[in-house]
């Protein structure tokens, strides 16, 4: 009963979510950033952290500070891909009453306030499949204004069912690719991902890091070369220097734990907004000094 290594599956009309309206909106945003000479900046905050109102303010401040796309983390009881910061944020949000309904409401309010910015909820697979009706959950996310969806523990091997639901809801389903992903599989994932391809910059869980790991440049260049859609790098990205460094290689950068750290339990939206503005400046490629080829 040996299962072969998951075979690379090149996208066909029946797979992937590149054809959805959500994917189109996201791609347009990346193109706009590119024509502005910018690396697309993707900000991640946790819905309901530290509380509902503050997370709304934080989302708007991140967008106003220069985020092109907003990833909204839906707090989960067992976030096994997340480091200490996001585990803590998840558990505080849940303790303070975060639910799927409230996250939908938050999503809708952000969307009403900043309708042009693509919103991409990020969750774990059980938040979709553990519910009575996963298709309805995705449809409601789309109705609330989401353009895409990321599930941290969903890979292309298990994704067909959710992909179908995402297509039905017109949502882009964003897949992740990691440094440990085999080369053929990187191609397969890139062709199945919708909107953008989430490149995990290092082997580990989420969390802000002082410096990016050696070899990240080579990995990202490889992914970039294989991907037909924009590539955004995340995990560990926390400083303007990181954004400059990565911006030379990929189309977008994702900053999560650093923003959540800045926001903190006290909900310091201003501190977080400062950080976003600094990152947005670094995302401006014209100002980027030339780096040695190997970063």
């Amino acid at each position, binding site marked *: *009963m*040996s*299962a*072969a*290594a*998951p075979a690379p599956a090149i996208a066909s009309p029946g797979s992937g979510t590149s054809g959805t309206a959500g994917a189109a909106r996201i791609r347009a945003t990346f193109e706009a950033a590119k024509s502005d000479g910018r690396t697309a900046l993707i900000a991640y905050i946790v819905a309901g952290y530290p509380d509902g109102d503050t997370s709304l303010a934080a989302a708007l401040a991140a967008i106003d500070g220069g985020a092109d796309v907003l990833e909204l983390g839906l707090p*989960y*009881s*067992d*976030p*096994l*891909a*997340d*480091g200490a910061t996001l*585990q803590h944020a998840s*558990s505080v949000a*849940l303790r303070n009453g975060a*639910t*799927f309904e409230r996250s939908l409401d938050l999503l809708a309010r952000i969307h009403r306030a900043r309708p042009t910015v693509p919103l991409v909820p990020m969750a*774990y*697979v*059980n*938040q*979709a*499949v*553990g*519910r*009575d009706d996963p298709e309805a959950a995705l449809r409601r996310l789309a109705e609330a204004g989401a353009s895409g969806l990321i599930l*941290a*523990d*969903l*890979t292309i*091997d*298990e994704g067909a069912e959710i992909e179908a639901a995402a297509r039905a809801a017109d949502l882009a389903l964003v*897949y*992740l*690719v*990691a*440094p*440990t*992903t*085999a080369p053929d*599989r990187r191609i397969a*994932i890139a062709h199945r991902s919708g909107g953008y391809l989430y490149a*995990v910059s290092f*082997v*580990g*869980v989420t969390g802000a890091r002082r410096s990016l790991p050696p070899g990240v440049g080579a990995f990202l260049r490889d992914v970039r070369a294989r991907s037909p859609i924009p590539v955004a790098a995340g995990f560990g990205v926390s400083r303007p220097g990181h954004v400059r460094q990565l911006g030379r290689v990929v189309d977008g950068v994702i900053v999560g734990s650093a923003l959540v750290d800045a926001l903190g339990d006290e909900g310091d939206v201003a501190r977080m907004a400062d950080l976003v503005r600094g990152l947005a400046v670094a995302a401006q490629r014209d100002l980027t000094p030339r780096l040695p080829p190997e970063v």
Partner: protein
Amino acid sequence: MTAIAPRPSTRTAERLGVLADIAERRRADVAAELADRALADLGRDAALAPAPRDALGPLLRPGLHVIAEVKRRSPSAGALASPETDVVSRARAYVAGGASIVSVLVEPHWFGGTIDDLAAVRAAVTVPVLAKEFVVDRRQLPVLRAAGADLVLLLSALHQTRPLRSLVRAARDLGMEPLVEAHDPRELDRALASDARLIGLNNRDLRTLLVDPDHAVRLRASVPDDRLVVAESGVREVATVAGWRAVGFDAALIGEALMTTGDDPIAIRARTAAFVAAGRPPSAAEDPAAADRTPFVKICGVTDVPGAMAAVRAGADAIGLNFAPATPRVLDERTAATIIAAVRAAASPPPLVVGVVVDRDPDDANALARRLDLDALQLHGSEGPETIRRLERPVWKVLHLPPECADDAVATVAEAAAATVERARSYLAAGAARIMIDTAGGPFPGGTGRRAARQLAAAVAREVPVMLAGGLDPANVAGALVATPALGVDVAGGVERRARDGTIVRDRRDGRPRKDAFKVGLFVKRAKAARLDRPLSDARPTPVHRGLLDVDARGRWGVEGEFGGRYVPETLVGALVALEHAWDGVRDDPRFWAELRQLRTDYVGGPSPLYRADRLAAALERAADRPIGHLRLYLKREDLNHTGAHKITNALGQALLTRRLGKTRVIAETGAGQHGVATATACALLDLPCVVYMGIEDVRRQAPNVLRMHELGAEVREVTSGSATLKDAINEAMRDWVTNVETTHYVLGSAVGPHPYPRMVRDLQRVIGDDAATQLRWVEGRLPDVAVACVGGGSNAIGLLSRFIGEPDVRLIGVEAAGEGVSTGHHAAALAGGSPGVLHGSRSYLLQDRDGQVIEAHSISAGLDYPGIGPQLSALYVAGRLEVLDATDSEAIEALRLVTRTEGIIPALEPSHAVAALGKLVGGLRGHALVPDDAVVLLGLSGRGDKDLGVLEGEG
């Protein structure tokens, strides 16, 4: 006529290295010493030597046998013994230690041997003696025989195919059995082409003298099973020999490792005995489950007494005598009676004697069976089920597989299988004792000699109990038994004497074929060993949906493939795929299982006993107001394992796997601490650094286990996130693994997690139920009516229950922890109180709210305090194959005390849940069938309760 191997060319000499020098020198020696001796002259000397001893018989016995070697020195090791060493006393010590054959180096210049050593040893021992010589000239053979040699070494490297074949024939004509040695595939091809029955595979390259201890094992796969195979050189440890036995070597030639023991005969004997013991196959007591997989072997078409005696010596379970007119092996009744008398006088118990008939009138067949006192009748014709009812002896019915289906498309095979299964069931319903599957189409209905359609046979054997017949021989029988869950095998033509062109030789006097004693012996040996160290090979029908027994190609379980899979961050996929492939390799690697079984017997203290708990049974009956003394309750005592629970088996298996994966660090999670202690223990044994994640809540509840892990050298990392119990410990271990996946193996402790974990942990733990089934058969003669186990993640439950999934008459019961009661919401009953979703990488039942948030489990038992359950158990539950009961915290405590007071066994809180639920079931539970009065119940006592005493204290 002298046959001198031609002098090698310069290129050949370079290729042969040291070997060329030795051969050259031997040639010169022969030229000088035997210059004036004619071959015929030498042959006369040889004829005067004592008769050769049977060299193959000892190697045909089960297991691996030791050929112990005397050599004074070697080119690789230098001097191995002082010049005055007593080779005779050494050889006697070898034999006293159990060596089956003594090998004596005869070559003088490099190895310091003499022909006198050979003669002296031969005269002093009773076992066959191998002349270890560099034979370059045919005249050396009679000289060696004259000195007493029973076997002679021939190096395939020194001879081309045809000269080698003629040397083999010459040696055999002298009564010596040639051992033809090869080191590489080309030499092996020549060795096989020489028709040698004894093939040696040398780990040492005689050209360079370098040893690669795995070389022979790799080459073994290229030697057909119809030869006896000897591994040579490279033995350092006893474990190496055990591994050689497991992969199918019949003997190990051991020299240096014995020579370096010194001259003390007692030490030499002890060292020899250690190697001999390592070559012995496990006894039934050491490996009960293997007895359950050992096939029934019948030697059919026996035509004379020597053939029947060959079957008896080989350990065949039955012989078949043919009474079908106009078939080549048909016997007259007088000959049959002589054979039967001889067989019954020779063995106790004798093999069954089966009479083969074709469309014989039932009254006539009954009369025949009475006259000859046949044990069974085998029907080979077109007899219908109604015939069986009229026969007075047990009936074995042969079903011929239609030949057009043999190699056809899958759909045809499935249809043919379904039709055959239906026919087989009609015969079984009419009272047939066995079904035999044979391919049709040959000229003789008494055994067609055609290769059975393996695929079709396997499909049939999964549904009904069958024996395989047709086309089997010593070379293919092991493969057939691994590929087909048949109960046994039947052979006729495959073990008969054949001419060089492959045609069966008919006896001159009566025109019937004759059995070849060597082939009969080897056939039985290969058949009996086929599944010995393959605990995962199917050996019986399992008429349930495949999805309940194993994963599909995507790692999913269930009738709809709705459980399991691999829901993990992308970073882990590569490691899981690598793990899956590594495990697929291990599943088929007898060396792994032999090593693990050895640890189980010597280190863990297994197989754990099966204990009949009469006082506990009576207490349950009394409480239920039922008659006392009817229930037969058997506890599978996994609590007696080293470290006190079933967990050690999985931990040792995965620790061995860690080494194979080339990983250098181990992490684990633990709830009750049992898996943490087991993993820390395995890591201490195998010298691996170990980190154990444990919820701080459990650290508090299970303090003694935390201390044990510390003392074993493991680092215990307390987990404070979430509910700070097992679930969160798994999360944290997963995070560690995501971060350190390149160096670390995650030893998951339960049959949960992403594929391949649920399958791997099940594979490792199923020994619990596999052993219990045989142990129960020994005392009850049958399988249990009910098998019951507690369920947290489910490693103990799936381990106990796996054996019985395909046994429709066995009720399978899983007992979940009800905490304060399932209706209170404070429980750990994932099946009874949960719904399907994804937790820890696989799709299965779990406790969750309507947002898919995981709900914390509640149980007084840390080992059951888990909101999920393994995917295979979920699949069994949904398919209706697993009944689910529960027990509350207080019921479990009460049961713990009951077991302790009635039996003097303090069980862990986990299995105490199973006892409590069984008590309720005996009393009668709505929605569940009553346990009959005289039921045989198997209950998994998965761990001991010392760790829980602190908790009990708090409960008053």
